[in-house]
C-alpha cells in the first residue's frame, strides 16, 4: 500500500424517483450532506472526482462541467472517472490514488445518476459497437441471464435450488432496505411473490432485478495527517483491486470469472486477508441481479464454487449470518448507477465507522465494497477497515 488514506465522511441523497429536483441540485444534496456530516467546507477540499455511468444516460455529456457548481468545485482541480457500472468504485480508486500520491490531503468523490430522466436500457445499448455485439448483448438482464445459466450448468446446480436461493436474496434484501433511510425500494416481498413475478429474461424475474433510481453519493477521502488533525473516526482503505477482461463477451469465462476473482485477490493481498468469510465482517456486493450476487460470493471466496445457493439458503449472508452481505439492501433496492458503486464504498465505510444506524452490523471492523461494469467485463473492489 502507498501512503495511508481513509474515508472520513459520506453523504447520500434520498434515492428514488427524484423529479422534484434538477440533476445539479440532486448532486448538491449529497455534497451538502457530506459537508454537514464532517463539518468541513469546500475550502478544505484539494480536489474533486466525479462520474456517472455513461454520461449520455441523462443526455448531457460533460457532467463534471454541468456539476462543477453543485460539487463546489469551482477553483479546484477536478477529475471525471467513468467505467460503466463500476464507475462508483473507480471514482473511489481515483480519489484514493490522488490522496495516496501525497498531492492532496482531502479529495471529494461524487457519484450520481438520474436514471428516470433518460432511457437506461437504450443508453446501455450504446456501450457496444454497432458492427456486432450491439445486436445481441444490449440490455443488462440478458447478459446476466446467460451468465447465470452457464454457472448453473457448470456446477450442475438444480434450477429449483438456484431459484429458491435467488428468491431468498430478494426477500432478505427487500427487508434490509427498510432499515436504510436512503434506500429507494421499500417493499415487503415474499418468496412466492419473487418466484412468480413477471419474467424479464428467463430465469430473471422482476423482483430479481434492481430499479432505476435517481441519486447521488459523496465521500471524502483524507490523508493520515488530515485524519489525525480532524480527530474523526475514519474508515481506512485497506486494499483496492480492479480487473478488466476482453471486449468480446464470448472470449472469457464468465463463471470462473477472472475479473471478479483477481480484483478481489488484489485487494485481499493488500489487506492481508486470507479467509474472507471469516475475516470480513460485512460486504457490500454489487447486486443488480439476485442470481449474480451468488456468483460474486463464489468469485470473492466467500464460499466454494457452486456452493453459494446452499449457503444463501442457510442464511450465511444475511444480517445475522456469518458474513452479512448488503445489509443496506444493496443495488437490488437502490440503483442510481453512476452512484451505486460509490454507495457500496460509502456503506462499507459507515459500517466500519459504526455509523450505519439501523442496518449496522455489530462491531464491524473490516468491510468489502464492490462494483461491476461493462458487459460482465470489469470488477472493482475497495476494502475498508476501522484500524490502519
Amino acid at each position, binding site marked *: 500500500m502507498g501512503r495511508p488514506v481513509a474515508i472520513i465522511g459520506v453523504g447520500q441523497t434520498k434515492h428514488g424517483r427524484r423529479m422534484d*429536483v434538477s440533476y445539479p441540485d440532486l448532486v448538491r444534496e449529497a455534497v451538502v450532506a457530506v459537508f454537514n456530516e464532517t463539518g468541513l467546507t469546500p475550502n478544505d477540499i484539494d480536489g474533486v472526482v466525479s462520474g456517472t455511468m455513461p454520461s449520455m444516460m441523462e*443526455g448531457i455529456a460533460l457532467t463534471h462541467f454541468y456539476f462543477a457548481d*453543485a460539487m463546489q468545485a469551482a477553483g479546484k482541480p477536478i477529475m471525471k472517472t467513468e467505467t460503466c457500472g463500476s464507475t462508483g468504485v473507480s471514482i473511489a480508486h481515483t480519489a484514493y490514488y490522488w490522496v495516496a500520491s501525497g498531492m492532496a490531503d482531502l479529495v471529494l468523490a461524487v457519484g450520481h445518476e438520474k436514471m428516470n430522466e433518460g432511457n437506461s436500457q437504450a443508453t446501455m445499448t450504446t456501450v457496444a459497437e454497432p458492427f456486432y455485439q450491439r445486436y445481441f448483448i444490449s440490455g443488462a438482464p440478458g447478459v446476466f441471464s446467460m451468465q447465470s445459466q452457464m454457472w448453473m450448468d457448470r456446477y450442475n446446480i438444480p434450477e429449483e435450488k438456484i431459484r429458491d436461493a435467488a428468491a431468498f436474496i430478494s426477500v432478505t434484501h427487500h427487508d434490509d432496505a427498510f432499515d436504510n433511510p436512503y434506500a429507494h425500494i421499500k417493499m415487503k416481498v415474499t418468496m412466492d411473490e419473487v418466484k412468480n413475478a413477471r419474467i424479464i429474461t428467463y430465469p430473471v424475474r422482476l423482483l430479481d432485478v434492481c430499479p432505476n433510481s435517481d441519486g447521488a453519493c459523496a465521500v471524502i477521502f483524507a490523508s493520515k495527517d488530515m485524519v489525525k488533525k480532524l480527530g474523526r473516526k475514519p474508515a481506512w482503505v485497506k486494499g483496492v483491486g480492479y480487473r478488466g477482461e476482453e471486449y468480446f463477451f464470448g472470449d472469457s469465462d464468465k463463471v470462473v470469472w477472472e475479473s471478479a476473482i483477481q480484483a478481489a485477490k488484489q485487494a485481499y493481498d493488500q489487506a492481508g486477508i486470507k479467509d474472507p468469510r471469516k475475516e470480513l465482517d460485512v460486504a457490500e456486493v454489487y447486486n443488480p441481479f439476485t442470481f449474480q450476487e451468488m456468483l460474486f460470493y463464489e468469485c470473492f471466496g466467500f464460499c466454494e464454487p457452486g456452493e453459494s445457493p446452499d449457503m444463501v439458503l442457510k442464511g450465511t449472508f444475511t444480517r445475522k449470518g456469518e458474513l452479512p452481505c448488503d445489509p443496506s439492501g444493496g443495488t437490488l433496492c437502490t440503483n442510481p448507477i453512476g452512484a451505486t458503486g460509490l454507495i457500496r464504498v460509502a456503506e462499507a465505510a459507515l459500517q466500519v465507522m459504526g455509523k450505519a444506524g439501523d442496518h449496522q452490523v455489530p462491531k464491524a471492523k473490516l468491510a468489502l465494497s464492490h462494483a461491476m461494469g461493462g458487459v460482465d467485463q470489469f470488477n472493482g473492489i475497495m476494502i475498508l477497515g476501522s484500524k490502519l
Partner: protein
Amino acid sequence: MEAKEYKTIKTEIRLPYELAYGATWTRFFEGLKNKTIFGTKCTKCGRILVPARSFCPRCFVDTDEWVEVSQVGTLIAWCYTNYKYFGMPTEPPFIGSLIRLNGTDVNFLHLMGGFDLNNFDEVKKIIKSGMKVEAVWSDDRKGHIMDIKYFRPL
C-alpha cells in the same frame, strides 16, 4: 492518408429524455412566460445571479432571495454564427451574446437580434460591445429560454 479505405457502417443514435427543472428553473421559466427575468441574490457575497440559481456557486449557500432583474443591460461580447451543423439547437445566422443586465453581477447568455442578420458587414455596423440592449419577448411564450426572442440594441 493514402491507405485503402475499407467499408463503413452508417448508423444513428437516438435517445429520448425527460429532464427535471426542479423548483428554481420552474420558477425562472414561469417568470419568462410572464415577461419577467428572475435572478436570485446570494446573501453571503451579495451578488445577484441571473438566471436564478438555487445556490451561489462561489459561496455554496442557498440563494432563496428572488429578484426581478432589469430587462435592459450592456452587451459584453457577441459572436456572429453563420454555419450550420447537424442537430444545431438554434437556427443560424444568430448572434450568441453575453449581456450584463442592469443591477446584476454576472453575464446573461442569450442572443442579439432585431435587425437583419444575413449580411455580416451590415451586422458589424450595428452591433458594438458596450452598447445598451433590451429584451424582446416572443408572443408565444411557453416558459422556455426562447420566450426572450433576443435582445435588441437600444
